[in-house]
């Protein structure tokens, strides 16, 4: 029997079948920049293989979903390909990304869950705005709907689980929080996060490359807008420059 020597530079990965044409590769179980870097590294290595049996690759905080064509590749060959790609770490340099300032009108009709957050946390609306807007967030992933940025890490003072029943329609531009994350709904969609404000910016444009305002690895800061008029001015500016 042979034993494999412990290798700190190669942490374990877990490949879990997710239906019959996808696997989820788990690279960790926390939201942190190191795990995120390993995710990006695996994605890049798989991208470089340009295997036609892989249909799509979806990076997330601590995992990568891989859609494959089971008519073209067996599970064992796929697993080997993934393990190989995961073992070549460090090919992606820690990129600083761009720094984005995103204006937000907090509370009122644009932040219907503000009162709920106040009740849960015992902070005032002003304090919640201050806590939410003081952090420089990292964009860990883009997902759910086109251009939705998953930003972390939210100050633990505001950590609240998702809604027990998701809403059927959250308006476009809604800025929301859930557990240690904050994000922006680019289009009206169902959703289970708590909505605290709204940005006038467009998050997605299918004619641009990349099509999203925020990319993985970017830094994002929320800038409070004082009133409805300022919000409308920014919005008008965007409409005029289409």
């Amino acid at each position, binding site marked *: 029997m042979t034993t494999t020597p412990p290798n700190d530079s190669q942490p374990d990965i877990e490949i879990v079948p997710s239906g019959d044409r996808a696997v989820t590769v788990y690279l960790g179980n926390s939201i942190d920049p190191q795990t995120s870097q390993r995710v990006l590294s695996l994605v890049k290595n798989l991208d470089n293989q340009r295997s036609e049996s892989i249909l799509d690759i979806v990076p997330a905080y601590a995992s990568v979903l891989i859609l494959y064509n089971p008519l073209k590749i067996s599970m064992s060959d796929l697993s080997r390909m993934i393990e190989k790609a995961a073992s070549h770490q460090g090919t992606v340099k820690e990129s600083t990304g761009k720094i984005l300032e995103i204006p937000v009108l907090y509370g009122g009709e644009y932040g219907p869950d503000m009162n709920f957050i106040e009740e849960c946390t015992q902070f005032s609306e002003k304090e919640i705005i201050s806590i939410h807007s003081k952090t420089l967030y990292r964009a860990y992933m883009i*997902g759910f709907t086109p251009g939705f940025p998953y930003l972390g890490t939210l100050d633990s003072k505001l950590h609240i689980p998702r809604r027990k029943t998701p809403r059927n329609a959250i308006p476009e531009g809604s800025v929301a929080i859930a557990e240690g994350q904050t994000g922006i709904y680019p289009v009206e969609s169902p959703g289970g996060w708590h909505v605290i404000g709204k940005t006038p910016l467009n998050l997605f444009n299918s004619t641009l490359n990349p099509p999203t305002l925020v990319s993985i690895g970017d830094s994002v800061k929320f800038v409070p807008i004082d009133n409805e008029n300022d919000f409308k001015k920014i919005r008008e500016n965007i409409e005029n420059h289409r």
Partner: protein
Amino acid sequence: MNIDIIKVIQPGMLSTIQDLGRYGYQRYGVPVSGAMDEFAMRSANLLVGNKQHLAGIEITLVGPHLKFLSPTFIAITGADISPTLNGKSISGWKAVKVEKGDELKFGKRVDGFRSYLTISGGIEVPLVMGSRSTYLKTSIGGLNGRPLSTGDILSTAPLDHDFTGLQLPPGYKSPVYGGRHTIRIIPGPQQDRFDSDAITTLLSSRYTISEQSDRMGYKLKGPRIKHSEKADVISDGNPPGTIQVPGDGNPIILLSDRGTTGGYAKIATVISVDLGRLAQTVPGQSLGFKCVTLPEAHNLLRIQNAALRAISDQKSPPVGIKIEGKFIEVKNKEGDLLTSNIRNEEDHVESKVTATIGNESFDLALEVQNPS
């Protein structure tokens, strides 16, 4: 050269242009979209001489009224919504010749929920991120990201070869969807986040498809599924057909327009060959679940793929499966090999495999030879 082929007189309830979906952009949050019943879409394309991936029209519950502007072949698969050509009833699952000026209408829904209409040469709309599929929420693909509407003119790039129209080869019957559904699933990826009874509850209960069900997902009503601790996981990618369970315990099956990622724990995932059947269920109907293994799901997919090849080659259905060590073969009764030799390394020994065309089991018994 594109030619005008269809004029939309009435659009129906929700008729959208779809192909097999938009892959490669989920990392930007762009959903796959595409036909909800992929097998019906692929079959409809093959029947009119197209490659499987060309764009057609997905019709929902109430069909459109269309006028043809040039002669072509059409095929209608999936749901039976009583299609008529110039007032005369026409059959689904076969190519039908249409002439300039002919009018296609639909009537009462008889079976299923979504029909697929294809024409020889496919519907020509610009590719957006590699696909012609319509994604309504962000208005991309298809006709500027919207459903068909009155007055639309659709165009096609006609086939560059002679074509006489295909039908299902002898031995095949078109699917009957019915009202009582059993959907096959594979547990995971996060069944460990649930109470030990959760999967038993899912497998032993009937669930009603709620009215809040659409191309994005089907919300189910029935016995609640309990998490072991909490419903939230660190957000990760949503595989096609995955069953997520929010804190309220009501499962949601994620379909073509699903969000690319999500943070509710996923107890199980519907297998590929049953996603089409699911798309043909109607809100208000009920369904149950049954577990299969990953190798079984892959074999069913291979058999379905063999059935598609048999449609384009006009061969009889697969009648034999042979598992020899690491290889699986599917042959038709003429002895032609219908699948390529695909390595099947999972330990898979079973005495009987049910073959399906689309979503319906074959009448034909399949012989399975164990490798031992």
